[in-house]
């Protein structure tokens, strides 16, 4: 029998301003068998939230997210929290609910804690100048380190209490300790894989001893804010901490909405994806994958809003679809999902056409900014649409879900089943 936590309905924000890191949360949740995943957009934010138990907002452009969710988003979020919802925000998702006086952001003042990486005087940059700072009024939000950092979990955090773990940081906030939040992890050090974008002394001053992960209760629900990307697929300990946090929330919060037969019915709804259509979708995505991998070797980038996008991010989206598409195909599953299968195919074709045009223009050293913006928007839509179809298919029991490493079959068993 499934435990209640795994029957949660989890919404992942994939709308305006979201980068690609939300796909890491998808990987994490699937690995731990949380299959009730839905995607939330700026246009249906208010409508979707009442139906969710958990809302996840990962990396991206905080300003763009705030702007996109106005005017009704903040209130919808408050109602969601008050009725017992869990908000997990990492990186941009952690900045969003912090106190701010800036337009759009000021509607999300849920947490009073202050960030420790705000400065009036921009220090000398050593690497990646575009990623080093973001203008914030007459000050700057600076990011003196990237990549791997060490955080120490608070003693009272379940299972992981007192342990040090490595997690990746891509511009997420260091928070100053405050009575408004309950800290559960502190930045405690750097590693040989930490990339210093400024003088290490500045990095130490900005991060060490500051809060890397914390919680704030609001109504019956709570907000979990993660500076680093604990959800990154290369950091299994960080992943396990996120999973533990979800379970801990469930243990402390009555899940009033489970079990809900109406929900299960809805899970089973949707169109069937014809096997031929699936094959054709696979072709489209494979072609995209090859082209995206080639483009990732080019030294080109695009600044979209306050965020820098490299071609590797295109590959992230495509791989998120590809890895699962192959499974649907292997299992010859009847897939079901929202909208029509043809719609999904059209989206894939549109993404591929844009990607093709983009790579051709890059090869000719032509301007690609507008095309890249349109492509990333399309890719977000296509990826989320496909993943929703995929998870509904799993919910119908057409294919087995992927399992957490710890519970996976042994290599021998896996190989034996492949031979069969």
């Amino acid at each position, binding site marked *: 029998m499934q435990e209640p936590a795994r029957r949660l309905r989890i919404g992942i924000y994939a709308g305006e301003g979201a980068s690609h890191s939300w796909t890491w949360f998808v990987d994490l949740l699937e690995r731990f068998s949380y299959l009730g995943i839905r995607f939330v957009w700026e246009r249906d934010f208010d409508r979707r939230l009442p139906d969710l138990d958990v809302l996840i907002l990962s990396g991206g452009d905080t300003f763009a997210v705030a702007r996109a969710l106005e005017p009704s988003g903040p209130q919808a979020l408050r109602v969601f929290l008050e009725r017992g919802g869990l908000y997990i925000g990492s990186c941009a998702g952690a900045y969003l609910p912090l106190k701010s006086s800036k337009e759009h952001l000021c509607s999300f003042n849920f947490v009073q804690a202050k960030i420790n990486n705000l400065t009036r005087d921009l220090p000398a940059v050593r690497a990646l100048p575009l990623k080093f700072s973001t203008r914030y009024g007459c000050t700057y939000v600076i990011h003196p380190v990237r990549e791997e950092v060490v955080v120490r979990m608070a003693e009272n955090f379940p299972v992981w209490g007192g342990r040090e773990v490595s997690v990746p940081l891509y511009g997420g906030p260091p928070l100053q300790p405050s009575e408004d939040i309950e800290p559960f992890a502190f930045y405690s050090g750097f590693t040989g894989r930490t990339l210093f974008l400024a003088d290490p002394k500045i990095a130490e001053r900005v991060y060490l001893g500051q809060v890397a992960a914390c919680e704030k209760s609001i109504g019956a629900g709570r907000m979990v804010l993660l500076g680093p990307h604990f959800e990154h697929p290369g950091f299994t300990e960080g992943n396990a901490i996120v999973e533990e946090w979800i379970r801990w929330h469930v243990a402390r919060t009555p899940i009033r909405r489970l079990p809900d037969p109406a929900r299960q019915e809805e899970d089973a709804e949707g169109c069937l994806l014809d096997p031929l259509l699936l094959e054709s979708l696979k072709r489209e995505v494979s072609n995209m994958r090859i082209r995206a991998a080639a483009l990732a070797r080019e030294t080109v980038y695009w600044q979209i809003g306050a965020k820098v996008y490299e071609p590797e991010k295109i590959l992230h989206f495509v791989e998120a679809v590809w890895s699962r598409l192959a499974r649907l195909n292997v299992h010859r599953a009847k897939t079901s999902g929202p909208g029509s299968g043809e719609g999904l195919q059209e989206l894939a074709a549109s993404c591929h056409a844009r990607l093709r045009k983009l790579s*051709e223009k890059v090869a000719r050293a032509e301007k690609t900014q507008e095309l890249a913006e349109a492509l990333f928007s399309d890719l977000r839509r296509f990826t989320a649409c496909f993943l929703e179809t995929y998870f509904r298919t799993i919910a119908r029991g057409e294919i087995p879900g992927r399992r957490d490493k710890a519970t996976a079959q042994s290599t021998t068993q896996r190989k034996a089943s492949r031979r069969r």
Partner: protein
Amino acid sequence: MDRGNVYMGRILLVDLDKGSCEEEELSEDLIEEYIGGAAINLALYERFKDRDPVVLGTGLLTGTFAPAGCAGVLTGKSPVTDSVCHVPLLGQTAVELKYSGFDFVVILGKSEKPVRLWLHDELAEVAGASDVWGKDVWETTDKLRFEHGDDYVQILCIGPAGEKGSLLAQVSESYWGSRDIFGLGASLGKKKLKAIAMRGLGNLELAEGFFDECVQLKNEIASGRIRGFQGLVPILESLGADPGGLKALEARVHRNIASFNCTYPYNSFVMIEEDPKLLKESQKQEPGLLLTDPAGVASLLFLKEGLPAVLRKINRLGLEPAACGRILAQQGVSNVSEAEKSLAAFLVEGFSLDGQGVENVCGVAPWALPVHTEARLVQASCLFSHSLPPRPALGSFEDFSVSQNPVERARWWLERQATCLILGICPLSALLSPELSLEKMAGLAAKACQWDSLTEDAILGKARGVVRKTAVLGRPKGKVPPAWQDPEFESFSKGLLQGG
């Protein structure tokens, strides 16, 4: 045995009559019976022999960490010899084929219109090729890579020579030609198959301890016979090629490049228009040329400084360089412009030289080197491409503990080719490095797929089987081009057919 460590598990059947593709599982039974590469190619060839098959296959270790694990093999009926032959693929093609999800591709029948094949991520598509039909090898490679958006796409294609059915046509691996001396380029032309484009982002699983053994063997090879050498020039020097021609060539070598996982960089990249005496980087934009074919280069050495430009033209037209070189020499050609004029004539179907049959022309020995009996026997057998050196390079038969007897030597050469093309090990590397012994290759193969009964004897048995069966398939209709014949071949051939 664990197939997943060495194969992707798929055979692709391409029906050009219908323009469709079908997939079959590469069963463990088939692997257990034939191991891989040339042996499975041959089994597939026999199964479909009524439909004029051309089989493209990978070896057991192709694309793995195994040293020199770059080889694939093309098996089909040669229009030159009218019998079955095996052509090694030593570029990136075979590796890419496996990573694209297919271990073997069987091309059946012929298309009415020009077509090409696109293999990627376990998917296969037959598409029209009117956009590249008529284009040369380089234009075709560029066009297809642009079409698929990736310079890493590997192309197996034919040029105008193959399209026109010239028996001097060869199948080309991307820009740089191949070891096809059997006119398989004309076979693909007859099928109207212009190109096979491949790209795969797939990978193989890794058996425990396999990687460490590969590294150990690689180190042994690096510190062994090849130590202190690099590039094509020392190979040709050791085989007795014209020192004057080699000197002119060496001056133009820009860098030496190894094939996938090969320790010895036997491909040499030359800059054609760059002044070799220039110390600073040339400002000229030129594509250069990768020399991959020792026999082809050897036969063109008489052109001295003109060699790279003529070889580039040969590669672009999709012609076989060794035969072209010998014919140009016979014609008394001495410079690039004369050579280019002559090459245009080679494209014509049924091309002949001074009234000689075309099979005599393209049967001209590719090695402009002192020819020993064992080399003539190897050449006359017409089983494997003798555009590879017909004897060990950089060293001698003694390094490989092979006796003085020419028959023994020729048999050893054939069996070594078959072994390499079953396992997917580069046969040129195997002629350079005695450290790449059958014992070591068998050990790696067994380790790679946890197949304990895959012993030295088992592999040698399959290799001998490939030699015998290929020779049998060539009889009675097969013909040895006069220029490849040798008076001692009949008795040698009997031995091969009997498997003795």
